[in-house]
């Protein structure tokens, strides 16, 4: 364990960025360069920390002790650094993309947007670095609060209703379910740190453990497990870079990351294997995967289809973890990375279509491929990753999930994974096909591709390709982590 102040610096870059952004709100170019500078700086710092973690150390910092045995502390281990690397890397490109998108559509209140964007990243990295449940909860709440202004950015009636839904689902569950569960845990064990074999062993009755597990999993509603998923499609009223951030990088991944921490750090694999509620969660995850895919097929608005696809993909991660076998958990964690790259590509393309052609509905996008070849081509490659076909990274994570399902000899779960991949094909491939091979319904000659919107998508696709051929650094980290928690 190495003690280091670097986590503070990482968090400070995006906490102090809003100040600079506000001061330069009258000079847009300067303001945007502050955002880019902050994101690049942050990624470099995270990369620096990751060198330590790759060598096998854990980076650790205790800030201030709040309750007996519970302090605000950071403990960056293998999965924490994976999450931090993915989010900070993708933030750079989301910032670039935001600049192109917001300027392309001439959106208002851009200063406010970039400020809260920076604060959202601050909270996300806080969650990634959190060393105990209290710190995680604190940054989780801060994330909910800093993304609310982003979701209601357009300040119209639709935004107001969606904002309400967002709050009710996310704040309501975290205050109503996670907080009591956390305090009950503290009452039973006297600590909240993430330990390799959990902290609840031998300290809690099986009934209580079942209840707590359900409270935690449904309390972290950012993971969009059904029936607590309705906020995600509603949040699509936000500008597309926000959706890209929410659905690829920050909010939803924070939800599943918190669940991973609960499973591995608070409960521990041994205890989970004895609980019935683990099977309940597996059931809900499988149900979500299939149902969300079915609903996605019926959506005509592109962003809503992508939202339901995200709901489905997130439950892959939860499914993988709840299967409790090492390969399944590895597949789940790996899917965080693969899905991030894949989905962000899709959202970038959706926004590019919005900026370039002004189209939101899939039925209107026939024939668009000829005028926006790069966009639709990248969309096709991104959807390959989500479906899980080589040579895109998504294949690797789904492969591990399948292996995990084989290991626990569950034909049902194997069928679920394969069926949903098929459903993914059904609702993704037609979009690219129609764009390239069908005749356009209107005159698309005015359409222009915005390069600031296309390049980030290209980078994400390249990332996805690279991860397919070379996932080893992350895989090694994940297996290192798994060997520690097996106990």
């Amino acid at each position, binding site marked *: 364990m190495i003690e280091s102040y670097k986590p503070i610096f990482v968090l400070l870059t995006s906490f102090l960025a809003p100040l600079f952004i506000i001061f330069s709100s009258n000079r847009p170019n300067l303001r945007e360069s502050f955002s880019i500078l902050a994101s690049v700086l942050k990624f470099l710092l995270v990369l620096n920390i990751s060198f330590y973690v790759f060598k096998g150390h854990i980076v650790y910092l205790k800030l201030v002790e709040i309750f007996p045995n519970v302090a605000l502390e950071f403990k960056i281990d293998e999965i924490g650094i994976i999450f931090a690397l993915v989010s900070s890397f993708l933030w750079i490109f989301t910032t670039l993309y935001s600049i192109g998108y917001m300027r392309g559509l001439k959106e208002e209140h851009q200063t406010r947007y970039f400020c809260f964007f920076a604060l959202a990243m601050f909270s996300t990295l806080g969650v990634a670095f959190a060393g105990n449940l209290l710190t995680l909860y604190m940054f989780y709440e801060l994330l909910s609060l800093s993304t609310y202004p982003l979701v209601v950015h357009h300040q119209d009636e639709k935004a107001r209703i969606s904002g309400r839904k967002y709050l009710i689902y996310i704040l309501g569950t975290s205050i109503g379910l996670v907080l009591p569960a956390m*305090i009950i845990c503290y009452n039973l064990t006297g600590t909240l740190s993430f330990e390799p074999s959990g902290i609840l062993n031998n300290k809690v009755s099986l009934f209580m453990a079942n209840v707590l597990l359900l409270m935690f999993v449904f309390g972290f509603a950012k993971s969009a497990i059904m029936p607590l998923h309705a906020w995600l499609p509603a949040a699509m009223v936000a500008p597309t870079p926000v959706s890209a951030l929410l659905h690829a990088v920050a909010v939803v991944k924070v939800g599943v990351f918190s669940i991973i921490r609960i499973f591995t750090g608070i409960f521990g694999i041994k205890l989970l294997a004895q609980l019935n509620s683990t099977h309940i969660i597996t059931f809900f995850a499988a149900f979500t995967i299939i149902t969300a895919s079915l609903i996605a097929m019926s959506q005509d608005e592109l962003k809503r289809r992508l939202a339901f696809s995200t709901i489905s993909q997130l439950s892959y991660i939860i499914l993988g973890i709840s299967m409790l076998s090492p390969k399944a958990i590895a597949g789940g964690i790996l899917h965080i990375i693969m899905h991030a790259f894949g989905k962000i590509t899709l959202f970038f393309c959706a926004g590019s279509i919005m900026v370039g052609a002004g189209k939101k509905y899939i039925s209107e996008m026939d024939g668009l491929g000829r005028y926006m070849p790069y966009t639709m081509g990248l969309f096709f490659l991104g959807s390959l990753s989500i479906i899980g076909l080589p040579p895109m990274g998504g294949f690797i994570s789904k492969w591990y999930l399948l292996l995990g399902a084989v290991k626990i000899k569950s034909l049902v779960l194997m069928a679920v994974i394969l069926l949903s991949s098929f459903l993914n094909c059904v609702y993704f491939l037609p979009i690219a096909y129609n764009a390239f091979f069908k005749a356009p319904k209107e005159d698309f000659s005015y359409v222009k591709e915005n390069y600031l919107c296309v390049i980030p998508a290209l980078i994400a696709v390249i990332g996805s390709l690279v991860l397919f051929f070379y996932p080893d650094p992350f895989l090694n980290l994940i297996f290192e982590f798994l060997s520690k928690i097996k106990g």
Partner: protein
Amino acid sequence: METLYPALTVITPLIFAFVVGIVSWINKKICFWLALLSLIVAFISSLKILFYITTTSSIVQYKLGGWPPPIGIEYRIDWLNGLILPIISFVALLNLIASKRFMEKEFKEKESFFYILYLLFTTGLLGVVITGDLFNLYVLLEITSLTAYSMIAMGGTGRSYLASLNYLFLGVIGASFYLLGVGYVYIKTGSLNMVDVFRILPHIYNSETVLVGFIFCMVGVWIKMGLFPLHTWLPNAYTFSPISVSRIIAPLMTKVMIYVMIRVMFSVFGRWYVLGRLYGVNEFVVLLASCAIIVGGILALSQRDIRKVLCYIIVSEIGYMVGGAWLGNPNGLIGAILHILNDMLMTFCLFLAFGNVFYTRKKTKIEDLKGLFGEMPYTSAGLVLVGLSIIGIPPTCGFFSKWYLILGALQAKDHFFAVSLILSSLINVILFFRFFEVGLFSKASYKKEAPVSMIVPLFIVSLMLIVVGICSGSIVNKIINEFVLVALG
């Protein structure tokens, strides 16, 4: 000089009240600065007392007139009141600065009277907290109450007179009950000094006189703090008074009464009496507190005037503290005391933020908050912070006291209280996001922010919300724990 700090804290505002009274005949302009000076002196001396207590781990005692207790009146400052004294003077100080513009607009000729009453009110509060004598507490309590009634009546509208008179009636009943309770205790123990009574009472625990005395004391204090269902004076009193007045009375008066309750419960009667002899009563009181929390929340949701919403939030918060104190375990008491500190700051910040809104917009209904975030960004920032604190989001201070309260409730197996705390958080989410929605979703015309003298106190107090939150670990360890160890063993 060292030993004079306790007296200095209380006497400075008192003397300066008279000085301001005299000076106001001559020169009206320096009255403000004189009042400010006295509050600064009170604040610094109360801080010095707190430092002394924390660094030397001893109790400060000051004998009035040199007479030793139990014959004379003594001022006794241990960790509990050492913590509360600086906060009272701090809030009074900042409120004076923030109210300067208000008073120029609202009171005009009567400014000096306001300062006199204000300083006397602060004297009374500081005295109530600092004293170690039961009857002295009654006297200072009445000083506080009388000045509060008069300040509320300065509102000038018919309804403010009525609200003040109504408060007067109920306040007199409350204080008289307290006096009655003290009388019963005096009959049996022969002493009025808190420490002395604590020493004598265990021998006569079974006496019914002592029981009646305890009940009267408690009910009197509950009336004055506004515990449901004895809270009916509160909404009108704080709504129809001028904002500068409700801004000082609301955060301090009720919380000081909670301090009195904890003092009487644990330092006069002792835990063996309250939790042992009266076994079973505490469950009833916690039930009452849970009802207070829920009813306060529901009533707050149904109001359309912002000031009424704030009053019902206060009623709810009182329930937190009373329930925490009566739970009977260390975590509950720590939560209650920490919440006294936090709630003083939170309520003050809330009234500061809305005070700015009322000053610039002159209207008080919820729909008059339209466009708040665009027009008044600094005030909105403060409002958001205090809203988060009342909801209970880390790292603001409200979360940490709520944690201790829920933990105490779980340990005492009082699940209804824990559930009501969580429900209250959820209700507060709805309340505050209703404000934020109205403020956010209407277009702002132009920036019209409150004057600097009002924004700076708001900024300072909202910053303190976060600082106190993060430092709550050390506050609990160094200060509150010491008291709780003595009180609950």
